[in-house]
């Protein structure tokens, strides 16, 4: 444990459990954003009003539209980054005040699998089992949507190995010891039962129930005399008799005055060795004796009634009148005395003395638990509660297996709802009960400190109650990182921009995105939100009940279940957190085919959500949340406009036509400042991320344009869209076929530049500037497109 503790020691000591601050250089960034938007607006204004080439409107208008689209995309993007926040947090084990380890919430780790090789899943499951967390509070579920025998066997093997591991053995031994102690206690309590029953039977004639009739008084007195022990002085006894008589009379004349004569009066007497205790229970209406005594002190000597209380006060040492839980009132009379032992021989007084001691213990037990009518009942309740405790321990002992396997039946012809269906099935299968759910893709290996670092966000210290309470945070997302990225990242998987300023910016507006893996969700939030949406679906079509366990939690309306789930959680008022610390590392697809499948799915899913659950129309979201979600959706329409940009220089080279009036000084004056400031803004926003990676991101953002067009097209034309699981194993091959469009644009641009050079050489063009500007533009396009063409035949240097 000491090793793990060393790993977990927080690097930066914090004054509080959590700290939130703006990312460095945010003010510089904001300043640049303002300048950027002004200059960009100025450029756009100039373009719209003064520089459209009226001669070639068919070319000028699309380019202008593309520029306007880009400008608004930029506005949304930059405003989305306006408030990037960095969070710091103390680990769960180092919270101040501390959260006791036995109060840690229960956590289920869901490893979602489809067709991944067992050795990949094994690494993830082993790491999940090794998370630094109390073993009894953690369960790892392999959710196998492929229903493969290998994964089932793997789970069983891991489960058995885990059960034999020292921490599990220790936990089992501890539980077993607790259970043994409980069983031993149960045996002892049960052994008491017969004797206690006898004691209560022996004491039973100290109770009497009589009707509310004056003529039963002799019977009451006779009963009272019969319980008189030796050792109570005559004078004391006389006082007790008087008090009993007056108390009884009081019930008849006051409490039960308007009640039927059958109304029972309960009498109890306990004669201890120094005290006589009398209780008279009536069923009258509540009466404030204390108040009455305070206000009615003196009684007229000649009055016919009203002396009873005074007599009572004089004859006993203490009296009280209270209302019990069962709507009865109780008059308690206490008379103290000094026992007369010397007058009676020991063999006569000893049994009474014992009886008195017994009485006192019996009274103590009853007074301790006034809700129980007798000690026998108390004992019975205790036996029951002990048995329940023992059952619980039995259950826990039988439930020690921490690595489990869940696969669902997928009937033909019914929707299965892909990954959302897989997770929802596990949520509602009845086999999982954790307070929190950590979702991991099959290949994402969590670090031991994962839970320690993210769970503190879900709790708030309540100063009034002096304990940690749950708050409204529904999920904490952590970055996605990869351990298999080849040098140079040919497929552009590194996402420090997204899992950096972008997510931090979203977090600053309470709209961090859930990205399906490396995130921990509050089960209550997920189920609560899911049920609300299910209820709405059900109200429209009650046949959807059949799918409840697949659609009642995570959103299933699109193939990017993660984004829509977060949006729905936000819309019903839950909060989110982005924690920018790499806590799990996974495999990135390292071939073009898988990469493109993954990106196509994201794009299609996002556009699906826009059509089916549009953030602009969804009630419950804040303005900024709408902006964040809409920005992502908006950005996927970029494909059409990129095509326009890419085509512009090509058209120039072959036709000599340009979409702007001129590329002269006016153009430079308006374009250059906007462009330079735009670049600077970007640098300020992405401070700390290697330029190489930013360039890679930019290349892919442009080079994927056919895919974005395909995504929009397929969703809008209603083509069936399948959830394609990103393959985790390399799909070897050359994929030039996948980049046909890019190859065509690349070739045409290259050919255009050569053609233009020939034209220039032949003296057909008068203005070499226009050629130069278009060539620079074209070279930039070539550099962007090259990345994906190169990736099409990329192979790892050393075969994996």
């Amino acid at each position, binding site marked *: 444990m000491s090793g793990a503790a060393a790993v977990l020691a927080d690097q930066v000591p914090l004054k509080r459990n959590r700290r939130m601050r703006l990312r460095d250089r945010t003010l510089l960034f904001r300043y640049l954003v303002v300048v950027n938007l002004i200059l960009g607006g100025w450029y756009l204004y100039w373009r719209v009003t003064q520089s459209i080439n009226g001669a070639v409107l068919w070319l000028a208008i699309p380019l202008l539209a593309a520029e306007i689209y880009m400008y608004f995309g930029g506005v949304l993007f930059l405003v989305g980054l306006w408030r990037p926040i960095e969070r710091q947090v103390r680990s769960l084990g180092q919270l101040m005040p501390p959260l006791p380890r036995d109060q840690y919430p229960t956590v289920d780790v869901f490893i979602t699998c489809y067709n991944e090789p067992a050795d990949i899943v094994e690494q993830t499951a082993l790491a999940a089992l090794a998370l630094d967390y109390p073993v009894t509070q953690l369960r790892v579920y392999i959710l196998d949507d492929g229903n493969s025998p290998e994964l089932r066997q793997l789970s069983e093997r891991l489960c058995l190995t885990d059960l034999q591991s020292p921490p599990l053995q220790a936990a089992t031994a501890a539980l077993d010891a607790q259970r043994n102690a409980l069983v031993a206690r149960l045996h002892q309590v049960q052994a008491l039962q017969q004797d206690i029953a006898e004691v209560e039977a022996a004491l039973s004639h100290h109770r009497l129930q009589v009707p509310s009739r004056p003529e039963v008084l002799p019977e009451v007195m006779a009963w009272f005399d019969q319980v008189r022990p030796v050792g109570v002085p005559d004078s004391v006894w006389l006082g007790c008799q008087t008090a009993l008589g007056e108390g009884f009379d009081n019930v008849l004349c006051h409490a039960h005055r308007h009640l039927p004569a059958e109304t029972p009066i309960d009498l109890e007497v306990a004669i201890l060795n120094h005290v006589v205790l009398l209780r008279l229970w009536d069923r009258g209406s509540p009466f404030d004796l204390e108040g009455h005594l305070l206000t009615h002190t003196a009684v007229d000597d000649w009055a016919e009634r009203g002396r009873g209380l005074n007599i009572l006060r004089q004859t006993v040492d203490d009296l009280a009148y209270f209302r019990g839980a069962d709507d009865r009132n109780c008059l308690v009379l206490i008379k103290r005395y000094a026992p007369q032992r010397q007058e009676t021989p020991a063999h006569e007084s000893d049994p009474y003395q014992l009886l008195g001691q017994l009485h006192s213990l019996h009274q103590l037990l009853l007074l301790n638990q006034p809700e129980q009518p007798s000690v026998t009942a108390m004992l019975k309740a205790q036996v029951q509660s002990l048995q329940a405790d023992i059952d619980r321990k039995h259950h826990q002992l039988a439930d020690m297996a921490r690595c489990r396997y869940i696969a669902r039946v997928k009937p033909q012809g019914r929707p299965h709802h892909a990954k959302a269906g897989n997770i929802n099935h596990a949520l509602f299968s009845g086999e999982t009960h954790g307070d929190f759910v950590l979702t991991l893709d099959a290949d994402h290996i969590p670090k031991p400190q994962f839970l320690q670092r993210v769970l503190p966000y879900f709790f708030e210290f309540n100063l009034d109650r002096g304990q940690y309470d749950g708050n409204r945070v529904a999920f904490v997302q952590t970055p996605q990182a990869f351990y298999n990225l080849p040098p140079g990242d040919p497929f552009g998987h590194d996402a420090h921009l997204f899992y950096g300023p972008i997510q931090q910016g979203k977090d600053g507006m309470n709209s961090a995105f859930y990205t399906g893996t490396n995130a921990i969700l509050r*089960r209550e939030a997920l189920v609560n939100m899911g049920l609300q949406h299910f209820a709405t679906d059900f109200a429209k079509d009650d046949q959807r*009940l059949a799918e409840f366990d697949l659609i009642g939690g995570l959103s299933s309306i699109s193939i990017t279940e993660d984004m829509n789930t977060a949006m729905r959680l936000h819309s019903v008022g839950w909060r989110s957190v982005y924690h920018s610390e790499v806590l799990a590392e996974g495999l990135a697809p390292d071939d073009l085919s898988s990469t493109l499948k993954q990106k196509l799915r994201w794009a299609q899913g996002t556009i699906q959500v826009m059509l089916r659950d549009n953030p602009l129309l969804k009630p419950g979201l804040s303005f900024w949340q709408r902006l964040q979600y809409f920005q992502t959706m908006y950005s996927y329409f970029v494909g059409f406009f990129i095509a326009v940009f890419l085509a512009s220089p090509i058209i120039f080279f072959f036709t000599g036509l340009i979409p702007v009036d001129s590329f002269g000084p006016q153009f430079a004056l308006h374009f250059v400042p906007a462009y330079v400031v735009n670049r600077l803004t970007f640098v300020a926003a992405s401070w700390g991320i290697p330029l190489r990676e930013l360039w890679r991101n930019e290349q892919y953002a442009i080079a994927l344009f056919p895919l974005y067009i395909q995504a929009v097209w397929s969703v809008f034309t209603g083509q069936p869209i399948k959830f394609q699981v990103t393959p985790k194993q390399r799909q070897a091959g050359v994929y030039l076929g996948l980049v046909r469009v890019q190859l065509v644009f690349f070739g045409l641009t290259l050919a255009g530049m050569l053609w233009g050079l020939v034209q220039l050489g032949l003296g057909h063009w008068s203005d070499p500037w226009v050629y130069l500007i278009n060539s620079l533009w074209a070279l930039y396009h070539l550099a962007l497109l090259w990345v994906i063409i190169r990736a099409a035949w990329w192979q790892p240097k050393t075969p994996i």
Partner: protein
Amino acid sequence: MTIAVKTLEPVGMLDGAAAHDLKNQVLDVMRQGADGVLLNLAGITYMNSSGIGALVSTFKAVRENDKQLYICGLTDQVRMIFELTKMDRVFNLYADVADFQSKVATAN
């Protein structure tokens, strides 16, 4: 014609695990030949979303057998969580056993 409706009266906390046990009880009762089950929740002191989730899952299983599930006796806390999750749109809810009998049992 009368339908055989069995009443179950769970008590205490109804969280995910407890509600899952209840689901098994309901299914047992169905197997023993009841046409419907009435859940009287008057004895439930606390219930959460996971508990309701398990109830819906029970409802689903019951419907798959062409049988009925009725719920009555919601305490204030339980009613609140039913309304928060909009489950009052999903379940057949009755005020108490008498209400259920007057509306359902006599209708058949």
